């Protein structure tokens, strides 16, 4: 019975339809969304379809500027830059999506519990957030990467022991990135969710649920969290670019993904080292990267306007 009621509630208000209409009217947001979806599809589908390889070397060829054969040129080992950008995009976008998801789950649960509990527990939980906030995220993530390096290297060595898991090479480092980035990016989400919960929990239907004898966990996750979807979606869209940026930042410093894998950060780093002789190695990955960030930000802003959420990011 409860489920039917919830469905009726969703069908009854046209918030979703309204928001969709407003979003479509925002040309920058639509362009951003189309670009990101197209890029993600290209990163996933194009390499197997075109038979591209990110590791195939052609040392005789060396670094060549963009040509008909290699659209974005080749690097010093003669590897096709376009293929490397697509493979790097897989890593960067995956880290962006998964680490944002980690941040989403932690942030929503933490914020909702803190806000609903109120009182001393709320104060203690928010104090923890304040303390982690006192340091810049990058310092924390660098610390976490130092902390996670050994366990993750051991996991990698263990994975290498199995032939059939060879596809997962380097997974340890990426898991470390998920954990380290997810561990800091949830903070803002927790704050936003807590603020929303504070206002929602005073509404009558929550009292009604409590009178019916439902436990706090059921009320939080079945009655309150579904009503938070707007701000949560918006903020997740805005988290993805900052996660991608953080990952590239780490990879640029050499603390992120390791060879043979490469993300956009490692490509930009390689490009920056070779830019005197081969500027296209910097300009290609750099502009794709900037375009992706721009698109995701436009999409996030558009969603915020469409859903009319006031979420102050920092």
């Amino acid at each position, binding site marked *: 019975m409860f489920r039917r009621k919830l469905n009726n509630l969703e069908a009854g208000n046209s918030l979703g339809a309204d928001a969709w209409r407003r979003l479509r009217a925002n040309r920058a947001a639509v362009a951003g969304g189309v670009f990101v979806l197209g890029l993600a599809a290209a990163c996933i589908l194009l390499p197997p379809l075109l038979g591209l390889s990110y590791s195939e070397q052609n040392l005789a060829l060396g670094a060549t500027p963009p040509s008909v054969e290699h659209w974005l040129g080749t690097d010093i080992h003669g590897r096709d830059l376009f293929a490397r950008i697509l493979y790097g995009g897989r890593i960067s976008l995956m880290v962006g999506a998964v680490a944002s998801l980690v941040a989403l789950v932690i942030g929503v649960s933490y914020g909702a519990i803190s806000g609903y509990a109120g009182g001393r527990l709320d104060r203690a939980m928010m104090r923890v957030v*304040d*303390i982690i906030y*006192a*340091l*810049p*995220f*990058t*310092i924390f993530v*660098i*610390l976490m*990467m*130092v*902390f996670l*390096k*050994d*366990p993750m290297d051991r996991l990698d060595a263990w994975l290498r022991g199995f032939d059939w898991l060879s596809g997962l090479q380097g997974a340890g480092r990426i898991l470390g990135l998920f954990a380290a980035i997810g561990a800091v990016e949830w903070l803002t989400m927790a704050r936003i969710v807590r603020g929303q919960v504070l206002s929602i929990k005073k509404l009558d239907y929550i009292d009604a649920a409590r009178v019916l004898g439902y436990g706090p966990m059921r009320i939080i996750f079945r009655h309150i969290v579904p009503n938070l979807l707007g701000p949560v979606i918006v903020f997740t869209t805005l988290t993805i670019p900052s996660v991608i*940026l953080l990952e*590239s*930042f780490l990879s*640029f*410093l*050499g*603390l992120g993904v390791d060879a043979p894998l490469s993300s956009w*950060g490692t490509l*930009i*780093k390689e*490009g*920056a080292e070779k*830019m*005197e002789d081969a*500027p296209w190695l*910097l*300009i290609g990955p*750099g502009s794709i*990267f*900037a375009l992706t*960030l*721009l698109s995701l*930000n436009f999409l996030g802003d558009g969603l915020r306007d469409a859903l009319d959420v006031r979420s102050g990011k*920092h």
Partner: protein
Amino acid sequence: MFRFIARRLLETIPVLLIILTATFFMIRLVPGGPFTTERAVSPEVLKNLNAYYGLDRPLGEQYARYLWNLCPKTFAPWRLFEGDGLDLKAAFGIDLGYSTKYTNRTINEIVAAKLPVSLELGGWALLVALGVGLPLGVLAAARRNTWLDHTASSFAMLGICVPTFVMGPLLVLVFAITLRWLPSSGWYFPSDRVLPAVTLGLVYAAYIARLTRGGLLDVLSQDYIRTARAKGASELRVVFGHALRGGLLPVVSFLGPAIAGVISGSFVIETIFQIPGLGRQFVESAFNRDQPLVLGTVLLYAVLIIGLNLLVDIVQVWLNPRLKFE
């Protein structure tokens, strides 16, 4: 005002203590000590090394000793500048211990040599951020919806989406390699400061321009501005005499995050431009797992950021006294 400052200062002590404790135990619990990465250290040598750095002691004792060495025991700020750079030991009796990588140097010496470089870089970057961002934002707000506004806004969006580690190499490519106007790396002459400071500052200039524009537009739509206009005040006087002070509030509250961002940005900038600052040192020490150096640097950053944020908060309350009670 005094009570506000005192309360905030007292609040920072537990925060610093928790950061210190968490970092200390996190680093000590990492499997493998700082000497395991070096090649072929015999067990005897390892034992001696551990004994030398006190790493063979119980963890609790190490922690207590570290904490005691950190406590300020003297107060002589005038001695801060006696040696080369910042002498924390002479001034406050703060001892950050020994580096396990650069065995002949104390962390105090490393910090003394490298912190001033990073502070100078950060200072120039903030100057660029404010010097470019504020005028741009004011101009965009005053000439709203003209080509000037659109140009300034696209510049801001560009600055936000092109990260420092793309912008830096691009600026080097254009101004150092192609045009040969400025040096591409180093930290010796005044001209060496230009590219790093501009790279680091541009991102924040973009944010500040956006915030200034938004803040000014909010204020410009208020009644007292209309009154000023009705009384015949010139546009210049309306913007600078009446609107600017209120319009700058969001910019001041952004300065806290901006300072933290400049510090983490310095990791990348100092790597790109080969600047011998603390940021590059921090990244290197994370690489080398030079645990005492990582710990000392994180603590220093925490103190720096919390202190500067406190300063920003005080300025904010001074500009807008209503905040005191929130």
